[in-house]
């Protein structure tokens, strides 16, 4: 499990931890959509600021761990922005004055603005994702999808059960590798190494499927597919907090899009 990143968990009670997951999902999606419908860089900047405020004040997440977690995004933002600016179609438009000219290549003001808007989308999306998935775990998300949005419960809880196989995968990977070495399968050339990786992935998938089959058998033995109406252990209800979160998120998205510069 150590290979996979540990999930961020709230370390103190906070407003968003008491908002149900689907309400946070609606709010996060509103910001995602607001950031992808525009090519004006001021919109993602405003949304990033709003998301940082929400993270600090209401998420309850350990703030010190967040920069490290988001660091890989820097590369994504820079490369996407650079690409969007360099290959922008507005650079070819001779009626727009060039800001930078490098030989035959020219970069225009609109290209830079639109490129920044596209690159900064990554930031808006990453922060809203933290606000949606950070304050509670997958179990609560499944509860919320089943009780509030009436997702089919066998699919939601079956998926939740299947999530348990993820931690075993790293161990399987190591064991399978050791077993193959023991049998003298030691690839030298890059092509052989690629085949070896393929073989290991297949064996890992087989182990995962077998584990899932046993899990399903155990679940059925305990009446998972009995057809009797399911009652809920952890009851979730839509409260005023959910509506407040959704209304505020929509208002922030609308303001980010509509406010003059």
């Amino acid at each position, binding site marked *: 499990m150590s290979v996979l990143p540990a*999930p961020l968990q709230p370390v103190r009670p906070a407003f968003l931890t008491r908002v149900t997951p689907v309400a946070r999902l609606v709010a996060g999606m509103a910001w995602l959509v607001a950031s992808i419908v525009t090519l004006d860089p001021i919109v993602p900047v405003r949304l990033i600021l709003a998301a940082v405020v929400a993270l600090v004040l209401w998420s309850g997440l350990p703030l010190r761990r967040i920069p490290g977690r988001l660091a890989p995004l820097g590369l994504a933002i820079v490369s996407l922005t650079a690409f969007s600016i360099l290959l922008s179609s507005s650079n070819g438009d001779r009626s727009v004055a060039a800001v930078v000219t490098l030989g035959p290549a020219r970069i225009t003001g609109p290209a830079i603005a639109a490129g920044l808007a596209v690159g900064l989308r990554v930031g808006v999306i990453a922060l809203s994702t933290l606000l949606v998935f950070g304050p509670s775990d997958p179990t609560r998300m499944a509860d919320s999808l089943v009780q509030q949005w009436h997702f089919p419960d066998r699919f939601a809880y079956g998926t939740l059960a299947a999530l348990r196989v993820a931690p075993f995968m790293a161990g399987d990977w190591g064991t399978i590798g050791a077993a193959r070495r023991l049998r003298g399968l030691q690839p030298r050339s890059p092509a052989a190494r690629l085949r070896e990786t393929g073989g290991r992935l297949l064996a890992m998938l087989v182990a995962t499927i077998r584990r899932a089959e046993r899990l399903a058998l155990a679940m059925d033995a305990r009446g998972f597919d009995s057809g009797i109406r399911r009652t809920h252990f952890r009851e979730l209800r839509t409260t005023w907090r959910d509506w407040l979160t959704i209304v505020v998120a929509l208002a922030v998205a609308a303001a980010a899009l509509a406010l003059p510069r």
Partner: protein
Amino acid sequence: MSTIPAFKSSLAASAESTRWRTVDIVVVAAIAVAFGVVFWFWNAFVWVWLRPLGEPWEYVISGVWVMPAVVAPLIVRKPGAALFAEMVAAVVSVILGSQWGLDTLLSGFVQGAGAELLFGFTMYRSFGPIVALLAGAGAGIGEALHDIPVWFPTATREVQIGIASLEMLSAAVVAGIGGWLLVRALRRTGVLQTFPAAE
């Protein structure tokens, strides 16, 4: 009288063929989880090294992302398998910290839906290599329909067309044919005995 049990059992068989058993749900979800974990490694350790290839060439092997949408239906052969598997893989990759975050859910939905439509056209009766290839391409079209407006709205028409066609081709070859070969390899290990794909 003798026709009635036969009639009943054929009805039961057709109901059984579209109803999801627990083992179908858990195995498809587990395969999707496995792919979600692979995606996380892929995004963090492989995809970043493809960046220097430049657009649109880095999309040559983007088909890996839509493999669950082909592999899961080939195994369980049930309506909804493509969409369900691709969505679970997307959710897992979000939970693990995909750089595309919530947007992965949108990607997963359109990619799964693209493959689902293709399997739906055959009434979920045909699962050969040709259908797999077309389903892969369908998922690739879904992928492009999402990626072009969201990530490459400013790019020139040529680059946009280049990315879209590479995504589609890569999905057809890597996910379609690759997915079909993967299911064949899985079948030979005997792990799929409880599924229709075992035949």
